[in-house]
């Protein structure tokens, strides 16, 4: 049965090698459904680079260019420039698709450059909150409290005590024409935002929530539920930054962070007291976001 508004055509075919319950595959699948056939995608080393298939097999129905780790945005810039000089850019979407490490750590310089230069590219960061492809190492987008293989829990602590970088703030500081957070648990919102990104004359940035059952130590069938909890608790708010204005797309902050944290093995060492600290931090960030929305619409 066709769900109204979700394009039927698939560009991510079966046969890929992603883990069960992989959020990144849903992100790619929804994004490509909206972007369609006339799309060129590039990817750095990340989970998604490992799953479409080994040469010469591919599970994608669009051209895909693999690039060096720190070069996703520079690579997309080069593709866009070449399409422009060849007179083909009008018809083709250029999409960089990278993980959190490739975006917020090693690739952030190239991303900053590409946004500042105003290339007409769509940069999608699927954020599974650690270097999952290499086996769950901490990135600067790993959330506070998480245990990873480079923040292992030991007798003296060891789990991550730093907070995530706010990538949306970083791209907003470039006055990017359009940036949005998306969550595959909210497909209609997701699709609407990719459609908008597609229509933008200039760079757009999509920050995609991406459940990783393997790295988060959670049940693979609970991915969508966990995703909903992330948004309902305000941990991963759905919002847009467009022409300098913030718009929150889901305002019902009805759940506490405890419910979200207790579903995932990566947080199981945390005390209830520490989770209260996290709750305070999330509340503060949520209030900041509401304030940003209010101020930017004045």
């Amino acid at each position, binding site marked *: 049965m066709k769900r109204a508004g979700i394009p039927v055509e698939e560009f991510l075919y079966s046969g890929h090698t992603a883990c069960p319950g992989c959020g990144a595959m849903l992100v790619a699948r929804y994004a490509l459904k909206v972007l369609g056939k006339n799309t060129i995608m590039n990817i750095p080393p990340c989970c998604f680079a490992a799953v479409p298939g080994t040469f010469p097999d591919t599970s994608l129905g*669009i*051209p*895909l*260019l693999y690039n060096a780790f720190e070069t996703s945005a520079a690579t997309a810039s080069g593709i866009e420039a*070449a399409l422009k000089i*060849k007179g083909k850019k009008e018809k083709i979407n250029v999409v960089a698709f990278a993980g959190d490490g490739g975006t917020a750590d090693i690739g952030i310089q*190239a991303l900053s450059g590409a946004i500042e230069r105003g290339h007409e590219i769509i940069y999608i960061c699927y954020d599974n909150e650690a270097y999952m492809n290499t086996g769950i190492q901490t990135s600067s987008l790993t959330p506070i409290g998480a245990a990873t293989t480079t923040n292992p829990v030991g007798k003296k602590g060891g789990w991550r005590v730093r907070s995530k970088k706010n990538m949306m703030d970083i791209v907003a500081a470039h006055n990017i024409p359009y940036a949005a957070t998306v969550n595959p648990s909210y497909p209609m919102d997701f699709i609407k935002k990719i459609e908008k990104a597609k229509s933008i004359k200039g760079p757009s940035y999509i920050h995609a929530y991406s459940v990783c059952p393997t790295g988060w130590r959670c049940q693979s069938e609970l991915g969508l539920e966990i995703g909903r909890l992330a948004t309902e608790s305000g941990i991963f708010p759905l919002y847009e930054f467009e022409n300098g204005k913030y718009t929150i797309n889901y305002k019902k902050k009805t759940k506490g962070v405890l419910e979200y944290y207790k579903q995932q093995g990566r947080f199981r060492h945390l005390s209830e007291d520490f989770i209260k600290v996290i709750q305070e931090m999330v509340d503060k960030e949520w209030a900041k976001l509401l304030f940003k929305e209010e101020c930017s619409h004045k």
Partner: protein
Amino acid sequence: MVKKIMTGNVAAAWGARLSRAEVIAAYPITPQTSIVEKLAQFVSNGDLKAEYIHVESEHSAMAACIAASQTGARAFTATSSQGLVLMHELLHWASGARAPIVMVNVNRALAPPWNVWVEHTDMMSQRDTGWIQFYAESNQEVLDTLIMSYKLCEDKEIQLPAMIGLDAFYLSHTSEIVDIPDQDQVDRFLPDYESAYPLDTENPLSIGSLSMPNQWYSEFRYKIYEAMERVLPKLNQIEEDFYKEFGRKYTGPLELYNTEDAEIILIISGAASGTIKETVDTFRKKGIKVGLIRLRIFRPFPSEALGKALSNASFVGVIDRSFSFGHEGAIFTELKASLYGRKSVPMIKNFIVGIGGRDITTDTITEIYENCFNCLNNKKVDVSVEWIDIKV
């Protein structure tokens, strides 16, 4: 055809313009800067139709060039020294991607201590990246080599990138008369770039994906090896075509200067060859048989041509304007390896000169020739590697 007085950097910009580079990714660095400035001016004036990307680093410059090339555009960039070594990862990537990018590198020393003057270590340390490497002697050669390089690199049997080295300041900032070919002539010589496997939404390919040990990785690398083997014969043909179109003759990987009957031959790459030629003339006037080989191409290394050119020499002095610490100069190492197994092998010695832009004068070269003569007369190479003109 117009003759103009211009620096090596301006000649490089003209070479890119005449080659109709379509995507230029540019990041400034002394002493390369006037190349990207001149190109920006060409684009601003509408003299060159190109997408000019103001990248935020040399690393991104090369990434953008690779992607543009793989999308089917002719890509150009220029760099120097720190910029080149920052690109190192992506130099390997460019050849692996079979992207026929042409890049100009103004040869400059590496820090610390800071030094912006000529040295060849920046390019020599990119030896194994799968790039064709040229070293120029004159501004005219910079321009001509750039045009020929695109033809060479884009050839379906080659499909590799090339870098053209020009010595910092001695070429980059020194003005000479340069013959600027007509655009029509260049267009005739160098047709538009047609990529064999571009990113194309009508024919969606995944390019660069994983290849396991039992799959195709070795074969991809073997094909680069094969392509490199074809470079020198292909270049011969291109230089002949170039001569027919433009009337300027280039002689493959080596320029031989009074080598035929020479007892002692010096080998060098880069613009200091001019000084050596003058010194050779002085010796020749006295009836002393010395000669010079200018190495125009370091990769692929012209082993056969060098072996042949040195077959009658008694003594060879290899001048390296770079050094591989823990061993010797790069050209020296390569040359010795090339001579292994040949029937008559000359005595050979390495001279490390002109490091960090220290001037190589006729006095320096005279001293080196005399040093060679002493070794030859004593029938013994005193030391295998000697740093010349050093204050300690």
